[in-house]
């Protein structure tokens, strides 16, 4: 069994859960059991993730490293219900995601999971504010409430004065901050970031990572961050390395979560 495991440290980030309750220490956010994801390319079937069992604790920061094409993004897609495993089960907050109907999966994504992408993935025709607002549309939030929350979200990433700017009118760092605001405006429990600094220069990279770390700390998010950058990965509580679909867990620089939750 491909299981991530390491010695833990009990230190936890501060923060409260989005629903206002205190983050429960040692509770599970994700539990992956024997997850395999196969892709068919022509006549060949390629395993992107192989027989993976993993536990991610509520409020944990897990970094995933690995070479291109070794299954990092696939794992992130599975965690975000953008894809379904070929076999195995994925539980999130007690729900079996593999059996979740499409409609409920969309609802769960809309409510609980924030995504940040390497290429920002902002809608080019919408302003910064409208891009952030787009995350609230599936939740049926009223327009006035949306406007209030959008303003607050942009302020939280120091882009309040850029609300009406189109993505093309902003720098890469600013665009990624808009994407962070979009991911966090719905107050998710999980933030999945796929190489969020991959397209940024060094200064901007630090700016974004500092922002993510700050938000992770303040909000008690579960953060799963895919990165090629070892320096960034070391800032997480744990570091998972994907190689040919297999995951190996290592300790990060930050104190790791409790040990009893580290095995699948």
């Amino acid at each position, binding site marked *: 069994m491909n299981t991530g495991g390491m010695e833990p440290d009990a230190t936890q980030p501060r923060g409260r859960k989005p629903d206002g309750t205190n983050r429960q220490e040692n509770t599970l956010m994700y539990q992956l059991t024997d997850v395999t994801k196969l892709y068919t390319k022509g006549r060949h079937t390629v395993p992107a993730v192989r027989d993976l069992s993993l536990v991610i604790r509520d409020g944990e920061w897990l970094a995933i490293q690995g070479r291109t094409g070794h299954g990092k993004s696939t794992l992130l897609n599975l965690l975000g219900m953008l894809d379904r495993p070929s076999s195995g089960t994925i539980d999130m907050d007690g729900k079996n995601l593999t059996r979740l109907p*499409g409609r409920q999966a969309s609802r769960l*994504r*809309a409510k609980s999971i924030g995504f940040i992408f390497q*290429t920002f993935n902002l809608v080019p025709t*919408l302003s910064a504010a*409208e891009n952030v607002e*787009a995350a609230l*549309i*599936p939740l049926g939030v009223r327009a006035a409430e949306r406007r209030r929350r959008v303003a607050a979200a942009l302020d939280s990433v120091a882009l309040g004065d850029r609300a009406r700017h189109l993505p093309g009118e902003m720098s890469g760092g600013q665009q990624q901050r808009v994407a962070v605001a*979009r991911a966090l405006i719905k107050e998710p429990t999980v933030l999945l970031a796929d190489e969020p600094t991959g397209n940024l220069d060094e200064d901007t990279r630090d700016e974004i990572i500092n922002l993510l770390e700050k938000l992770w700390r303040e909000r008690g998010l579960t953060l799963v961050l895919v990165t090629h950058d070892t320096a960034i990965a070391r800032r997480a509580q744990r570091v998972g390395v994907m190689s040919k679909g297999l995951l190996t867990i290592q300790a990060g620089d930050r104190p790791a979560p409790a040990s009893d939750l580290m095995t699948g």
Partner: protein
Amino acid sequence: MFFITYLRRELRRRMRQAVLIALGLALGIGLVVTVTAASAGVKKAQADVLKSLYGVGTDITVTGKPPRAPTSASGPPKGATTFQVGPGGAKVCQNGKCENAAGKTIAHLTPGNYGPISQSKVAEVAGLKNVAAAAGGLVLTDTGVKIPKNFGGIGGGSAPPTPTQFNVDGVDTSHLSLGPLSAGKVTSGRSLTSADATSNVAVVDSGYAITHKLKVGSKVSVAGHDFTVIGIVSQPQGGSPPAVYIPLARAQALATGSTSKSLKNKVNAIYVTAASAADISAVQSEIKHLLPADTVTTAASLASQVTGSVSSTAKLANDLGKWLSILVLIAAFAVASLLTMSAVGRRVREFGTLKALGWRSRRIIAQVIGESLVIGIVGGAAGVVLGFAGAAIITSVAPTLTGDLTSPTGQHIQAAGGSGGGPVSFSPTASHTVAVPMSASVTAGAIALAVVLALAGGLLAGSFGSWRIARLRPADALARVA
């Protein structure tokens, strides 16, 4: 509203493509509107032709069984008027009785190609189920021949006389709302009334009145009898409507059938109005059952007998125009669909991101269909404008159309003076030529059709895009750009 904002921004982003799609749809829809307008104009022209011939409100026309056409071998039919030219000069003979015709004017009022129908049948037709009204009439031709004094003498004398003809309609004065006079507008004097049923009074067509310098109070000769002109009437369209309208009873008294039989208590046309347009076919069948030998014609079937440019234009509009419109529409729809699919293809990352944000496919599809519908509606609106322009161009450049309905009068006249020395025979024909201006007008139906087509075009294009979105897996969409 976010939906509107997103839609507006997206359309603005691909403005050029949106304009191209809208223009394609506009072209197709504009052509459909123009062709529909032209078709409606042609139908109106046809209706005007029929109206001028049979009056307004007439759904069905019954005409008497045509008399058997004379053959060259059989000679003139019994009772027909013949001229005999011999050593004694010109004689006019009828039923074996001959008299000297030199210097005389011989006038006949004959029913042309329509055989007689008993007037009692008019009441029977009126009593049929789903018949709102029925009126009898006599469609007649007045033929006058002035025989020169020295015609037919030794040496041949002067050239054969040329008969003068005009059409006379015997009008049922108790049913003036039906029949040929119903469509006319009295421009001077008055129309016929029930009180005129037995009087020698006539209403004259305005064109005939001008040609023959007739006015109210003038005398017009019908079958050799003087009729006082009491009114001048103008038919809706120009051409050759009946020249003179006289009371039916007087027409019956003066006219003679193909065998010189009196037409008293006879008509040769019955004008019928059905209770509703839907009943026309049923009423036609009932009348055919009642009068199996006679000809029952609906406005629709009569339209097929109308020849001339109005008929050619109808064929052009209905055949070429229709198929051209369909082809252009198919092309426009195909281009719209392909461009929409292509646009969706370029927005895969965007839609994948929206799915990652929790947008359901249905919402994204609604967004894409909304964009397509807006393009379709803009194209439809532009198409209607183009349609109006096309209709205006057709109206301004199209020549006046003519409709012809030709029927022989059934009269058979033989005269001397043939190139071989034998008699010359001729059978005058009653030709109804009606000139109508071509007026292509955009109807509410055409606009409704344009709206439907615009929505259909938008929906079709959006559906192709939606089909692609529905199949889009968010992980694939995001992986494609990662």
